[in-house]
């Protein structure tokens, strides 16, 4: 229970630290500017400002080559305090004045402490009381909303925190790499393996160094915190778009409770990795963009009106920055944050912006809109790319995964054409090909299309001949009658053909969407719904001046893009990203889209009622019914999977050792999983190096480890490395170590040295080495920790006379 409780505590610590840095601190600094805004807007703005500030402060200190805790504190606090003083100047000045006056009076003997306290205390008391009252009052006034949101977030904390709390290991191998990069940042090296979007790493580095939380703890627990933000962004965007107050919560529900999505579409949220972290900024882009359009329209209208009245100066004087410009700035920041954290999110953000732009056509082409957006786009890209370009110019190359990402994007079409060629023979009848190994569905109908084209051409030639024959020797009135008849027939046939084509199109997409959703019916529903929503919204855009339907249209288009993202293979379109990644974004877009559908229906249905509080019964009822149905039909999302990468006992030992032993005084002998976790705290010797050294034992073989304490991590059930299993079950392992395993020849180096089979052999050898060594040093070589799967031995060495660990253990 020790690690479980500790994990929960660390999770709370990380949540408080991150929450303070990106919510509370920005709110304090920008209090004067934010105090009148809505809570949802405050939340989004603070999150964006806070993260932007943290990420760029870290970039600045690294690019100036002055990384360190002191500089981090200085560069963080000084601008923040100056900003706070400047932004809140009247209030701060007043407080300072009261403070100095009171103390002057105290020292001059004009007043007593009591009266000074009476003068000074009311302000903080008022602030605290006001804040608490504000929080409670807001909570009680919106208790139903809060209750529903907290319940959904609570479920997600359970869902995504389950692995973190019960297994307390790194969930995916990527984290080790990111951990290493953050560790190198601690050494003063940013972009260790080359230029890479380091925004996420900067945040982890900041939390570690500024708040004093261990990197390993942040990596283990931050996933739950970032997940809360990712989920809340869905709600906040929907709050902006939807007319109903409760439909955004229903939207959140769609991404929380029902088992709609393929498990791979949501599993990554349980891990602390850059792509998922960057998703926090995706919807703020749309939020700001939509806000920009609304504000800009209002501004133009007011400007026109005031111009007419010749009072424009009064309005211009009111703002240094116009509200629309502010929205654009926040759009720039959000967009730049996506780019600063992960390129894939930027791609999705581009789709999102494109969707909004299409929806706002032709307004978007108006020079006053277009120029602003163009400048904002340029600035956002510049802001995000500047640190990376600076590093690149300073001589740091690009990181390998960037080449991989670009290759996978460019090679997507190549792979497709390759697939097409290979599948032609198999799919001559247009049979859908399902690859179980890859888990994706690929359709190739190029041949069928060609045949269809030929048939169409023949048919066209034949109908032309037939038409000429038909009009031959006919009077004008007869010709007109025949023409009308033909026209009717043509319209009907075109409509029929269009319907058929649409059905075929939908069918293709449905097949692809099976990679994203669990149910085919749901796939079908989604594609039909998006078409309906797009068509209806487009229609209503033409009749309504408000931006509501444009926003609906934007979401429909965005969702359509996301659907196409996973369906490019079916339409011979260039692949932007692989389906495995694409489905994460399609899944993430789904709740927004579903909520928009509901809200659209709500808007239409409740139009006569003018959307007052009673009409909210409808979405509440829908939400309650859906929840009820989900639970009663046992359709609640089951817990996700976990990868076998590291034994839980190993993580527990890492923590205990780091807590209990002085830095640099201990060494761990294990596989590679713990290397980065214990970085700078202790030393590490790889298992294959350790056993390899005594592989061919002679009298001269000496193997010493120069540290006082040495720990040996042995997996009694070696992990089936990289395989996955249910998170509720034990990690996937191979059999219990055995003499048969120990007898086999092992590889002591190379890429797959810790892969399943070799790992089994190595761990078996290691176990029997430990047994023999224990007979030689029964008192000294002790079991430090043991559970069903894992055992850790400890030996305390005389540093002046080290043990020779090279022994004959019968399986050398």
């Amino acid at each position: 229970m020790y690690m479980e409780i500790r994990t929960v505590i660390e999770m709370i610590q990380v949540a408080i630290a991150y929450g303070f840095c990106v919510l509370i601190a920005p709110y304090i600094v920008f209090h004067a500017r934010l105090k009148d805004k809505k809570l949802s807007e405050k939340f989004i703005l603070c999150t964006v400002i806070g993260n932007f500030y943290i990420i760029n402060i870290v970039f600045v200190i690294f690019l100036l080559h002055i990384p360190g805790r002191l500089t981090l504190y200085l560069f963080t606090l000084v601008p923040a305090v100056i900003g706070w003083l400047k932004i809140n100047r009247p209030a701060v000045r007043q407080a300072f004045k009261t403070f100095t006056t009171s103390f002057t009076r105290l020292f001059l003997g004009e007043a007593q402490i009591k009266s000074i306290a009476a003068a000074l205390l009311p302000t903080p008391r008022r602030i605290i009381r006001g804040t608490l009252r504000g929080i409670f009052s807001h909570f009680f006034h919106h208790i139903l909303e809060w209750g529903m949101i907290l319940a959904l977030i609570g479920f997600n904390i359970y869902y995504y925190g389950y692995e973190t709390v019960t297994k307390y290991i790194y969930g995916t191998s990527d984290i080790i790499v990111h951990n290493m990069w953050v560790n190198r940042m601690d050494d003063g090296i940013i972009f260790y393996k080359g230029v890479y979007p380091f925004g996420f790493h900067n945040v982890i580095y900041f939390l570690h160094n500024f708040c004093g939380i261990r990197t390993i703890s942040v990596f283990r627990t931050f996933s739950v915190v970032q997940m809360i933000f990712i989920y809340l962004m869905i709600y906040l965007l929907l709050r902006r778009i939807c007319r109903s107050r409760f439909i955004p919560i229903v939207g959140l529900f769609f991404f929380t409770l029902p088992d709609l999505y393929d498990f791979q579409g949501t599993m990554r949220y349980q891990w602390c990795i850059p792509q998922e972290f960057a998703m926090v900024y995706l919807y703020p882009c749309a939020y700001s963009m939509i806000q920009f359009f609304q504000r800009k329209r209002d501004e133009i209208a007011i400007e026109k009106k005031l111009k007419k009245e010749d009072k424009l100066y009064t309005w211009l004087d009111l703002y240094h920055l116009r509200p629309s410009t502010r929205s654009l700035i926040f759009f720039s920041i959000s967009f730049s944050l996506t780019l600063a954290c992960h390129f894939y999110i930027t791609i999705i953000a581009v789709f999102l912006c494109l969707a909004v732009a299409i929806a706002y056509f032709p307004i978007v082409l108006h020079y006053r809109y277009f120029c602003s957006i163009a400048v904002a786009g340029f600035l956002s890209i510049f802001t995000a790319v500047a640190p990376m370009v600076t590093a690149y110019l300073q001589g740091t190359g690009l990181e390998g995964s960037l080449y991989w990402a670009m290759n996978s994007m460019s090679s997507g079409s190549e792979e497709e054409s390759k697939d097409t060629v290979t599948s032609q023979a198999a799919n001559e009848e247009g049979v859908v090909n399902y690859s179980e190994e890859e888990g994706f569905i690929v359709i190739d109908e190029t041949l069928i299309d060609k045949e269809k084209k030929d048939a169409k051409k023949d048919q066209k030639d034949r109908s032309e001949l037939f038409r000429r024959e038909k009009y031959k020797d006919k009077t004008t009135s007869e010709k007109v009658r025949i023409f009308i008849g033909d026209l009717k027939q043509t319209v009907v046939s075109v409509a029929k053909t269009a319907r058929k084509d649409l059905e075929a199109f939908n069918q293709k997409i449905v097949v692809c969407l099976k990679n994203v959703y669990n149910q085919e019916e749901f796939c079908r529903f989604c594609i039909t719904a998006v078409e309906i929503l797009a068509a209806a919204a487009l229609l209503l855009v033409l009749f309504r001046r408000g931006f509501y339907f444009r926003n609906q249209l934007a979401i429909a288009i965005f969702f359509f893009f996301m659907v196409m993202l996973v369906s490019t293979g079916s339409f011979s379109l260039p692949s932007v990203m692989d389906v495995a990644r694409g489905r994460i974004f399609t899944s993430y877009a789904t709740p927004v889209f579903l909520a928009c559908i509901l809200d659209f229906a709500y808007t239409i249905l409740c139009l006569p009622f003018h959307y007052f509080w009673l009409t909210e019964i409808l979405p509440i009822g829908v939400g309650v019914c859906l929840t009820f149905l989900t639970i009663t039909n046992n359709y609640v999302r089951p817990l996700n999977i976990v990868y076998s990468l590291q034994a839980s006992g190993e993580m527990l030992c890492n923590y205990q050792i780091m807590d209990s032993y002085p830095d640099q005084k201990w060494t761990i002998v294990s596989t590679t999983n713990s290397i980065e976790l214990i970085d700078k705290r202790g030393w590490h010797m790889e298992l294959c190096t350790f056993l390899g050294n005594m592989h061919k034992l002679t009298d001269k073989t000496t193997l010493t480890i120069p540290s006082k304490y040495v720990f040996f991590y042995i997996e009694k059930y070696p992990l089936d490395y990289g395989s996955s299993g249910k998170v509720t079950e034990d990690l996937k392992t191979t059999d219990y170590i055995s003499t048969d395993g120990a007898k086999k020849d092992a590889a002591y180096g190379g890429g797959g040295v810790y892969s399943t089979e070799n790992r089994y052999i190595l761990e078996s050898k290691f176990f029997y080495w430990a047994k023999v060594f224990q007979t030689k040093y029964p008192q000294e070589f002790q079991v430090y920790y043991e559970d069903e799967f894992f055992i850790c031995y400890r030996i305390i060495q005389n540093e002046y006379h080290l043990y020779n660990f090279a022994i004959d253990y019968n399986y050398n």
Partner: protein
Amino acid sequence: MTISRSNFIVISITMAAILFLFQFSNISARFTSDATINPPRKETVQTTRSDVIKEETLRQPNTYTTAIIGTEKSVEASMAVEWCTYLKRSYERFLSLEQYDDNNSQYNQLLIVTKNMINSEKDVKLLQQAAKEGIHIIITTLPSISRLRSSPRLQKLLGIKKIESGSWNTNGITVFDGFLLGGKTNYTKFKKLIPYVRLKSGTKTYITAQLKEQGQKKIKNEDLPPVIWRYQYENSFVFAVNWDFFKDHTALGMLTSMYADTEEYFLYPVINAQSVICQNYPYLSNENETDLRKNYYYSASSLCKNVLWPDITSILSATGEKFSGMTAPKLEYSDSNNLVRNDSIDYFFKQNERIQGELGLSGDQVESDSFYDVKLKYDNNVVKAKLPDYSFNVFSPGNMPEDVYRQYLGAEGNMLSDVCTLVLPKEAYNKPIVSFFDKNIVQMLATIDGFSHTSEEDIYQKSLETALGYSAVYLDFKRILYPTDKKDDWTQLSKKLASYLNTYWREYRKGFQQTTVSEADENIRRFLALNYYSYRQEDNINLTITNFDTEASFILMLTNEEIVSVSGGTFKKLEKDRYCVTATDSNLVIHVDSVTGVE
């Protein structure tokens, strides 16, 4: 300004009250002083020789747990016997390994093989057989190099990989942490020729030699000549000693530490007494005035009162040691002019009472052997007359021959009749550290000269602290009162004394009691009398003590564990994994827990 009558009366009464209060304590102390009264201790002493577990009792030819292989005159074997006596281990002595082979005990756990006892391959085979049977082996002196070279089997048994050299000049030794109490120590002045061997993996080295040429020849620490090491052979551990530690009581601690390393835990009784004995001090006469005036500008009497006493008390109070003075009434018994001074008696006995010290009697004198009888008779007549109610319970004969004082000890009507404790100087190495002199009198050996601290003395002291938790620092003031060279100057000696007590005993004070000689005597009697049995149940170590008297002390050696609580006693931590446990009940339960971090 005038003072009213009533004010005058009040001021006068106040001043009188203050005067009375200040003087009262001194005056009352003088009237109530018992400085010259000391009842005989032997009436209260309960444990006598008949109550203790003797060597003879522990010698059990058929059920021994320790076999000692050595000749009858072997000092190493005697040390092993003494060690068994203190640990209450049953033992049997054998003159050869063959003899041992003929008389095996099924309870045997330990085989101590002394010098020159491995003479043939057959002996080696016997040792191998013992190792197979799970009997741990301690070879107190490494066999000769020719013997080693000629027997690969013996090399294998001892874990020797290679014999580098038959004789190598060492520059000192390093005793590693966790072996003897006191932690890691480098002794740089231990120069000796020893065989240089290299050890196999699977060995653990406790002491290594230092080599002058280590840096030059780039010899790794692990390849330095081993002095004491352990090798796991078959089912037991074989310990080998490549030094002459077993020539004296240094062997006791070595044996304890080696044997402790074969057990999961090791709990054994100790004396738990740290004493400082001032031989020939207080000094009650005023002899050798000319010499002393030349050196100190003081007479002997003044020197003792005005220089030595303040220095001694301040040094002892700084270190928390208790004062045990062995009074020398006179040192020149041919000189009839300088008699025992009443003012000296008055001064020292009262000062002693004030610091709650103890006064015994010294047997030293500076003249020929024929004067020992004169001394004893003089002391009996003069001192006894001056201190009729004072019983001297402690006698330190110094250089007085045993046959002289033996006839007086316990004999009625003389000064030594009440003696319960004999303090012998360290030179008496052929005697046990603590034992019974006769039926009632305990004899205890001083363990170190307080004005000296060489490497040999340090390792000897550490060994005794490890084995017995015992030290008796011996300060002979005769060399100050009768100086022979500059080294006997008190200014130098007092500095040495202060620094030695401050430095070398600092660690032991944490866990062991600081006692007067009589208090140490009590602890020794309890130590010699008790027997014990301990066993472990998971994290609880149970100890049952028989012949238990009020309290008993033990040392508990653990490996990476710590004591959490003790029921039926108390405990103090000596150092990592080492605890001094004091039992206040005959049944004791020690709860231990593993240490997950660094202590």
